[in-house]
């Protein structure tokens, strides 16, 4: 029988399955940039779908190989050396195809291909058709980087690609002002919360000497304050990406994007990417009871908030988004309390269900209108007690989260304008009374 070196196969398969989707996007982008005519819709989607299909097949092969069907399972850690190595500083080029990574990778490739296929028809003749598929390819690579990263630097690259993709899709229908505003709010939340990830990553490098995921196992030996600080910084980033309280305000606004991307990002992958980060940093969480408590409190509070809002939201996609958020909060609590295996199963099942629900949402609304909505009589549906009314009102206003965030942003913008005036004065003084902007 022919002997297959599974380690060598996996070594080639992993980077290919990660990079192929973005390579497809680059090809489509170059076709547009270099020629005077746009390629046909068919050509663009074919290129991307072929890349995503190969990515899915390779992901499945890696998963099958890891079960040991072909003999000894290959090593989960695939080391490609260093992306950069200067003195003591090193950006490791390491991928980690362990059970968590493989499950999330399979989930991401399957859902992305499904949504790409669905969108071929859904987005047909839509302005921005090519933009949609180019960004989708970048997002697919980002999701795979998150799933299979063996080092925090690589994980962060994927994390950022998901964030950029999410912002671009929310503002997809940019001829209206509201999607653009929503896109900016989501992106600002991501980027400011990602400062936590960056700080945590630099801290990990300094205290553990490496940013590899496996090095996090050493966090058990860290002083409590160090593991707690690192864990809290990561948690801030997770709260931004997974729309946990108090950063939940951007999620209903994110529904401005095309339905397939709502399905992929907020039903399937993007919201769950934060939870996957929590799974990856579980050694830090288990080293600090403070993180466990804070994570559980944040998750459960978000679940209660989202459950209440989902029951009062008059918009189908908004209600669905909050129903999703409720489960995401519960999964965060599960991971914080150490139930990582249950959490991984919960993530997979939940993502599949929600993608289906989102993709079906337009039809469901259509069906409801066709068949007729059986509304509950008004007197039965109205809140009875004072407490019920208060909860109802608070849920209806989504706790005025956006207003509260704005009350922090507004003074900052006043400061920015004051600084700009100061800057202008400095330019006038140094420039001898002349200023180009005045």
């Amino acid at each position, binding site marked *: 029988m022919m002997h297959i070196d599974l380690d060598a196969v996996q070594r080639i398969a992993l980077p290919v399955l990660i990079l192929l989707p973005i390579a497809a996007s680059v090809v489509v*982008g170059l076709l*547009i940039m270099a020629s005077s005519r746009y390629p046909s819709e068919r050509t663009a989607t074919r290129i991307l779908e072929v890349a995503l299909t190969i990515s899915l097949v390779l992901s499945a092969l890696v998963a099958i190989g890891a079960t040991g069907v072909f003999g000894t399972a290959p090593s989960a850690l695939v080391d490609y050396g260093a992306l950069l190595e*200067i003195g003591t500083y090193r950006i490791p080029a390491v991928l980690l195809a362990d059970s968590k990574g493989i499950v999330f990778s399979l989930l991401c490739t399957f859902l992305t291909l499904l949504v790409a296929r669905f969108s071929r028809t859904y987005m047909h003749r839509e302005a921005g058709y090519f933009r949609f598929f180019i960004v989708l390819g970048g997002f697919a690579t980002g999701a795979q980087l998150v799933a299979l990263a063996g080092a925090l630097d690589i994980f962060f690259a994927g994390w950022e690609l998901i964030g950029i993709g999410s*912002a671009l899709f929310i*503002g997809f229908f940019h001829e209206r002002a509201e999607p653009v505003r929503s896109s900016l709010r989501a*992106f600002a939340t991501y980027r400011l919360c990602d*400062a936590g990830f*960056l700080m945590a990553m630099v801290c990990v490098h300094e205290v553990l000497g490496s940013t590899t995921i496996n090095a996090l196992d050493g966090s058990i030996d860290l002083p409590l304050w160090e593991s707690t600080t690192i864990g809290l910084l990561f948690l801030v980033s997770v709260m931004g990406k997974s729309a946990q309280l108090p950063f939940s305000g951007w999620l209903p606004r994110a529904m401005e994007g095309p339905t397939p991307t709502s399905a992929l990002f907020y039903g399937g992958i993007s919201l769950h990417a934060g939870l996957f980060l929590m799974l990856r940093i579980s050694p830090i969480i288990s080293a600090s009871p403070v993180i466990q408590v804070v994570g559980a409190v944040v998750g459960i509070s978000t679940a209660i908030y989202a459950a209440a809002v989902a029951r009062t939201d008059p918009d189908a996609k908004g209600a669905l988004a909050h129903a999703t958020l409720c489960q995401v909060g519960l999964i965060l609590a599960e991971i914080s309390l150490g139930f990582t295996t249950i959490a991984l199963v919960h993530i997979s099942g939940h993502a599949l269900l929600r993608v289906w629900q989102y993709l079906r949402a337009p039809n469901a609304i259509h069906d409801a209108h066709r068949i007729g909505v059986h509304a509950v009589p008004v007197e039965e549906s109205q809140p009875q007690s004072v407490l019920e009314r208060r909860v109802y009102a608070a849920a209806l206003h989504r706790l005025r989260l956006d207003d509260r965030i704005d009350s922090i942003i507004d003074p900052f913008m006043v400061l920015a304008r004051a600084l700009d005036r100061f800057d202008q004065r400095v330019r006038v003084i140094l420039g001898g009374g002349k*200023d180009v902007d005045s």
Partner: protein
Amino acid sequence: MTPESVPYIVATLAAGGIFAPVIVSSRPVGLLRIILAAVALALSTASIFCSTGTLAFGLIAVLVMMRGLFANQGTDLPKLPCIVSTLFAVAAALTGEWPVLNLIAAVLLLATLSGAWPMHWLAARVIDRSPLAMAEQISTCIVATFAYLRFVAPTEFAFDAASTLVRLGAVLALLPAITALVQVNLRGFYRCVVAMHGGMLIAALGAAGHGHSAAALLVTVTLALAMGGLGAMVAAVEDRCGRVLLKDQGGRIWGMPRLAAAFLLFAASGVGMPGTAGFIADDLLLHALWEESVVGSLIMIVAAALLAVASLATFAKIFLGPPATSLAGDLRQPERYVVITTFGLLVLIGVAPWLLANPLAEYLRGFGAVPH
């Protein structure tokens, strides 16, 4: 790549920075302009290969002065920025024996070229007349940073001044990052972005005093490629639409989708988009800064986040929105090739940073720097 190839790589990047603005310029390219670009390239290359700091900074002084005297002739570009840069370059060339003065002069030269705060008042004048000229000026930063890393960073005083420069650079980066959020016109935004990167460069120069030379060079290469590219795109937008105010949404993406995409890509790579040189430069710089000053590192992270938000907001205001009625065309063929090449270089360094950083560390070891 070998350490011996480093000067050639730097010379190639400088050549690109000198010739790209000539190619994308909407003005007719005369013979004089091509000759001047060739002379500029010769001076840059000589500066990169020469063996003393006096000669290297002296040649940079001639290069900057030549641009001020001849290259901008016939245009209404202000001479003052070139004169000030020339004076700082001359000062850096003549103060090699006095490390304190040498470091101050070299840092001021780079602050002026990169438009860092408060020298941004000079950059503002250049940007106000021609963002493309600013892109050209920024390309000189690569050559000047290389001279700094070879002749200034290995000195004892640079070692002592490292923490101060890092903190100063972080604050100088934060200020324009905040003000970028409230700019009312495109040139104001570009000035803030350039100034923020200038602050990053100052911080990186500080870190280079403790041997983090690769971070400094990657930051300056990102500055030159991303900010040069962004400057070219700002010039391209203004060539087509005149002065752009950031009041309402411009809706220009409908008429110029390629230009919009290129603008977004350069702006994003400047704020550390994964897969580009900016991501690696930010990553490397943050680790270098952390060793010098934790607060400086945190400030830089916040500044980068704010600039990213400002960049997307500006992109939205220029390009997104309902279709605008305009006859302005999309990127011309030469502009497209420059975009593809420049962005290709950003991606190449982003996915294979060892090509530049590893031989550079080895190369600078020969000048007394201890690479980290």
